[in-house]
């Protein structure tokens, strides 16, 4: 169950025994949003309450998806070819924050710890040093050790590992602790006369794991948890928004760094709670056709509320063009915290009188309203050779092409043909090529 702000009378657990209610969200063309129900209260919004972006409707724990971009990975590869001098190479991740791709903290979250984490692979060729650190103001000049060690399950410095997760000690219990935090991977070497060696570090994920307690904990699974999330706790991730690579300096060899690999992971969007006003009256009516005819609905909104001079709905009607407005409807079961019926569509008619505004809705995908012939539009003629519509009396079957047509006044294909051989529509229309003698597969006799 979600925890609501203090002072808000929560609907989620207080509707015991009542029927499901309607949750109507309206987004008008002018960007105004309206949230209506038969009961006043706070519920999560499908139309994101702050940005207007449509996100997946979720309950408190259901999953959605988000594809926000974070620079959460990086790699450095260093091929030392008999380096003759000191050199180093670093990748530095910084500006950690709970971005849009991460599960947001619930309102009642109490942070238990914030742990630096990275996942990656490394090949340590024993040139000089390979190290991993976290902390503030880490050097990019090739000097270790500075900052905190990754201690668990072991110190990854100067070791080879494959797709392993390491984490360090908690940096604090508030998000403010993330300020200035950095995570760094570094290799450095000095004079080496041995055979060419390769040190490589490939990091696939970097972040700070935020463990918290809450009445509604959610575990963000976009990265593996560094350690098992205790019962009653949730996990969110602060990801880096800046990655810097300092290339090979001062040594002989080659180095390559990669950054800015987007980490896209399924995460449940954070519910945005808005107040739904108790303005819906009468019965909300839906007609579901189960065919190419789109579903329709009517909503009734009372037009009496307001101050002594202005009616709320009439004012909204005057300030907005409701026709065309996007409407998302949910029949909401408060006890299950889910919608047992959903409808998305547009307002196609808005009638208002002294008491009620009636909104007529149509769903999306109204294929039956598409005006198009019931045959394929193509360079190939859709007519059956020799049929009445074709009218050809030729003994030679056509190939459904203009060039082979013997009844060209009735040719029903498109009269131009493009060469799609290069996959690009050419600017120049080319003539129909001469017919190729072939069997007419369309002709059954």
């Amino acid at each position, binding site marked *: 169950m979600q925890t609501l702000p203090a002072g808000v009378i929560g609907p989620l657990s207080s*509707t015991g025994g*009542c*029927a499901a*209610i309607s949750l109507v969200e309206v987004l008008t063309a002018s960007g105004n949003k309206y949230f209506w*129900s*038969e*009961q*006043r209260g706070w519920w999560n919004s499908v139309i994101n309450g702050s940005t207007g972006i449509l996100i997946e409707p979720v309950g408190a724990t259901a999953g959605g998806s988000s594809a926000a971009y974070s620079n959460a990975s990086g790699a450095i590869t260093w091929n030392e070819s008999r380096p003759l001098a000191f050199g180093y190479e670093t990748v530095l991740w910084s500006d950690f924050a709970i971005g849009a791709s991460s599960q947001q903290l619930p309102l009642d979250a109490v942070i238990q710890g914030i742990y630096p984490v990275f996942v990656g692979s490394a090949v340590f060729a024993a040139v000089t040093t390979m190290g991993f650190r976290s902390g503030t103001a880490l050097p990019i000049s090739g000097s270790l050790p500075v900052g905190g060690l990754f201690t668990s399950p072991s110190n990854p410095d100067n070791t080879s590992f494959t797709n392993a997760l390491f984490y360090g000690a908690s940096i604090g219990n508030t998000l403010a602790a993330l300020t200035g935090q950095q995570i760094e991977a570094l290799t450095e070497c000095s004079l080496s006369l041995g055979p060419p060696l390769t040190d490589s570090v490939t990091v696939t994920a970097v972040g700070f794991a935020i463990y918290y307690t809450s009445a509604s904990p959610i575990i963000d699974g976009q990265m593996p948890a560094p350690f098992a999330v205790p019962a009653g706790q949730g996990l969110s991730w602060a990801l880096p928004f800046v990655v810097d690579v300092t290339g090979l300096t001062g040594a002989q060899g080659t180095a390559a760094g990669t950054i800015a690999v987007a980490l896209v992971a399924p995460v449940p969007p954070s519910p945005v709670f808005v107040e739904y006003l*108790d*303005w*819906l*009256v009468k019965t909300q009516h839906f007609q579901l056709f189960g065919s190419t005819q789109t579903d329709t609905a009517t909503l009734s909104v*009372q*037009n*009496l*509320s*307001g*101050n*002594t*001079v*202005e*009616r709320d709905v009439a004012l909204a009607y005057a300030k907005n063009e409701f026709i065309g407005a996007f409407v998302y409807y949910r029949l909401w079961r408060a006890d299950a915290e889910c919608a047992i019926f959903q409808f998305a569509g547009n307002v196609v008619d808005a009638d208002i009188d*002294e*008491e009620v505004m009636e909104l007529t809705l149509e769903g999306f995908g109204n294929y039956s309203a598409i005006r198009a012939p019931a045959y394929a539009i193509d360079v190939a003629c859709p007519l059956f050779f020799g049929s009445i519509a074709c009218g050809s009396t030729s003994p030679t079957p056509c190939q459904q092409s203009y060039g082979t047509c013997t009844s060209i006044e009735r040719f029903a294909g498109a009269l131009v043909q493009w060469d799609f051989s290069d996959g690009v529509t050419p600017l120049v229309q080319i003539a129909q090529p001469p017919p190729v003698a072939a069997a007419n597969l369309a002709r059954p006799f």
Partner: protein
Amino acid sequence: MAETDILNPKRGYWDELGDNPNWNYGWIRKTASNKKLAQPRLGRRYSREVMNGGYSASLNWIDRPFSTVQYLKRFFEQFQGGYFTLIDYDGCGRHHVGNFTSEPNAVETANGKYTIQGLTFEEAPQARMLTYPNDWANSSHWIFSVDDYLDPQVASQGTWTPQLTPAMAGTTLNAPSSYEMYNPTPIYSDFAQVEYVGWGFQMTFRTVPSFGTVSIYVDGHLLITQLSLTTGVSPGGTFADPTNPFAVDGIYTAPAVAGGFVQCLQLPLDKHRVKVIPNVAFGGPAKPVLFPAIQVMH
């Protein structure tokens, strides 16, 4: 004519009529159903006054002389589209202006005795009155800045917000009567107004030395100008002259102003709009102003 024609000028027997012009007991004093109601299945109730009807009555004259029948018939015909005055002596002598909206059908029940039952009298809106209702203690109600659900009742433009008034706290801090609409820095285009269906109104502006001045409009007519919320009086004066083009519906309006108390008694039954405009609209200083609760006659 009209309000000066009184159906029952006397309380008892009237020589000129040869009868008591008042109706018999067993009559019904009805309240108009002016309101529309909305009730979402699980929501609060919403109501709105959408008509301007007044009181009505179903009256009976039992076993009366024929002169009374003719008298009532005359009033019925004369005021089909107009109005006359009816005095409710048992109802604290309140005047009602209106007309008969059903026909006086007299039944001769005995020799020289006639009975008229169910004659409907309906109060007419926008009708002048000889005596406007003024029983503020018993025949008025309040429109506060917020309703019982603490939703705003005052329509406004500008930075008006409902605030708890320090001068008139209710029984609890959450009582609607504890609120006033407050505008700390009015600009020239600001206003606040309420509408109601009824007769006169009165309101008391809290006076504070640092406050500005306001003008009060009723139904679009300037009624009081430059009411100082510092002194509670109106050096700009009121507009009470019936020949003044600002007079409301040509009706003699005589607002009283003293100590921040504003009373406008002589308003006929109608939907009235009381609008307060900060005098900054006329070049005055942008000092705080307020819109208090308003007491309206019903």
